[in-house]
């Protein structure tokens, strides 16, 4: 017997408050890549420390030099500390750069570095002077860094480890298990600190107390920052997902709306091209009307979707690679050529190489609509002059000029409105959707292009598009002015 399959519809993801969906409780570990980057940064800092130790050791080799500063020659300990740090750095770098990445995770690398450093630091603290100098506060570097790198409980462990190592060192010194050391030449200094037990305890305890307070503050601030980072990352992920969802929706909608017309168109062709036998002339005329309306509706759907897609673009502006505008214009002319031939309209093209930063799809939409309009509103046998010219400032200028029906001056400011069609334009061609120039305006608005139009009824219309030589900042400029639709001239 077959097992019955079951499926439960997952609950919809909450969209309103990104912070609400963030994991509660302790802050999670940072991603592996960030931890590795931190490990590398940690190694670079350690080269400086290593250099300091080696330099101090070398100074100690110069007879009498440190003594003049009231310090005693350190002997071998700075070189030992430098050598241990060198070995740790080589291993940590090899791991972080991938040579031994398979052996341990990035967090293990960081942990190993921090523990190694704390042990070396304790060794240094002992030799520099655990009570008579402020070197013990160097533990703070590791405590603060661990607050940045690790979740709160891990950074607390680092703080406790620092406290334990420091107090252990002091305790062993006090008990006489570790020989008295220190960098001050005056050995009596420590004896002079022979304070009452309560004062001594406060003196020893001051450093760990300060570290714990610093840990608390740094861990709190770091958790806040990490929480904001995660919120931002989550919001960004949702935006990208929404953008992809919209793109998929656009594709699917285009397909779903266009596919039926494709089937109708194919079946109409079966009839009109005689694949189903001869048809009377009247039937041919009816099929012609069906075909025309289908094509018009398909174009309208296509243009509505393009306009909606451009108008609702909320994502980052698309990339603008430097492309030759003349090639894009040539491509558009080739697309419109069959329709131009049908309407006995010829092109006079003067296309000079003009490399400018441009969104290719947008430029194709813009030029395609301008050239298509020029053909549509030309008289049979007319010419359409198309030019692309580079500008001295690195930009380019494209013009599309027809000898068609022209536009009355009073109507020019309205031609870029969606669905606006002048009466004479409707009389000349009923197939147009009235969306072509709205798409042109939207592209100009989105990409910061200046579009101008000059027209005279009965003489023709000339559109000019100015492409800047560099990508203009769409935020910095006024939105109304960016498309630069110029008023009627002539």
């Amino acid at each position, binding site marked *: 017997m077959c097992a019955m399959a079951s499926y439960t519809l997952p609950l919809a993801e909450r969209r309103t408050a990104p912070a609400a969906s963030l994991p509660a409780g302790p802050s999670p570990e940072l991603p592996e890549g960030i931890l590795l980057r931190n490990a590398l940064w940690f190694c670079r800092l350690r080269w400086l420390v290593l250099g300091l130790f080696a330099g101090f050791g070398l100074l100690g080799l110069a007879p009498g030099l440190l003594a003049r500063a009231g310090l005693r020659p350190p002997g071998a300990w700075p070189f030992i500390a430098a050598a241990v740090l060198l070995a740790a750095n080589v291993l940590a770098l090899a791991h972080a750069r991938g040579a031994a990445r398979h052996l341990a995770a990035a967090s293990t690398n960081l942990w190993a570095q921090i523990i190694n450093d704390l042990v070396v630091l304790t060794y240094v603290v002992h030799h520099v002077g655990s009570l008579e100098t402020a070197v013990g506060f160097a533990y703070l570097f590791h405590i603060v860094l661990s607050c940045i790198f690790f979740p709160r409980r891990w950074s607390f462990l680092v703080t406790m480890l620092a406290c334990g190592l420091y107090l252990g060192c002091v305790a062993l010194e006090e008990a006489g298990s570790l020989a008295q050391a220190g960098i001050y030449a005056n050995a009596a200094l420590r004896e002079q600190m022979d304070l009452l037990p309560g004062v001594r305890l406060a003196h020893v305890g001051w450093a760990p107390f300060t570290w714990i307070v610093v840990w608390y503050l740094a861990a709190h601030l770091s958790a806040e920052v990490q929480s904001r980072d995660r919120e931002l990352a989550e919001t960004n992920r949702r935006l990208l997902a929404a953008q992809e969802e919209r793109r*998929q929706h656009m594709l699917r909608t285009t397909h779903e709306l266009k596919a039926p017309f*494709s089937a109708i168109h*194919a079946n109409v*062709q*079966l009839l009109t*091209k005689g694949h189903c036998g001869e048809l009377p002339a009247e039937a041919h005329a009816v099929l012609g009307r069906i075909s025309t309306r289908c094509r018009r509706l398909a174009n309208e759907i*296509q243009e509505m979707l*393009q306009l909606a897609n451009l108008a609702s673009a909320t994502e980052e502006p698309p990339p603008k690679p430097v492309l030759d505008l003349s090639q894009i214009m040539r491509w558009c002319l080739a697309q419109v050529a069959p329709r131009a031939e049908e309407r006995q309209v010829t092109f006079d093209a003067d296309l000079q190489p003009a490399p400018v930063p441009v969104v290719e799809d947008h430029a194709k939409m813009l030029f395609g*609509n301008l050239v298509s309009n020029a053909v549509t509103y030309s008289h049979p046998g007319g010419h359409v002059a198309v030019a692309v010219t580079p500008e001295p400032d690195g930009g380019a200028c494209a013009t599309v000029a027809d000898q068609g029906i022209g536009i009355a001056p009073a109507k020019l400011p309205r031609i870029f409105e969606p669905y606006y069609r002048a009466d004479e334009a409707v009389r000349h061609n009923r197939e147009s959707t009235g969306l072509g120039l709205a798409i042109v305006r939207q592209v100009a608005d989105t990409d910061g292009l200046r579009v101008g139009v000059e027209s005279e009824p009965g003489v023709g219309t000339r559109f000019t598009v100015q492409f800047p030589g560099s990508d203009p900042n769409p935020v910095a400029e006024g939105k109304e002015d960016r498309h630069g639709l110029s008023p009627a001239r002539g």
Partner: protein
Amino acid sequence: MAYLLLVDDDEDFAAAAAKVLRGAGHEVHVALDTDSAVESMQQRRPDLAILDVMFPESSSAGFDLARQIRQDIKALRDVPLLMLTAVNSRFPLGFSSKDIDEHWLPVDDFLEKPVDLDLLCARVGDLLARAASQRPPRK
């Protein structure tokens, strides 16, 4: 003349295109989904396959099928592929001929829907002729 496989989930379009292609002398088999297309191709290798892009289960099933044919099925690797799409347009939303690429879009040519059926016949003829000229001569 040639054995063609037409893969399209739109039965009305597929029937009309198949009729015209049959009228041009070709033998045409129609598959309405990509699984049955693969099955059909493994039973009998077509001289050319015409693929739609979007299918109900996936908006890129046609691309996936093209990649599968080119990369995974050795016996079908050199079958000429002609892709049909309703998404591409005179003003692009999707891809263009420059995207015909062995990895991204491994097809020989594509046509935009609504398709002129005479153009479809002509393009099929061109691709078959090109494939015949590239085939090593039989002894």
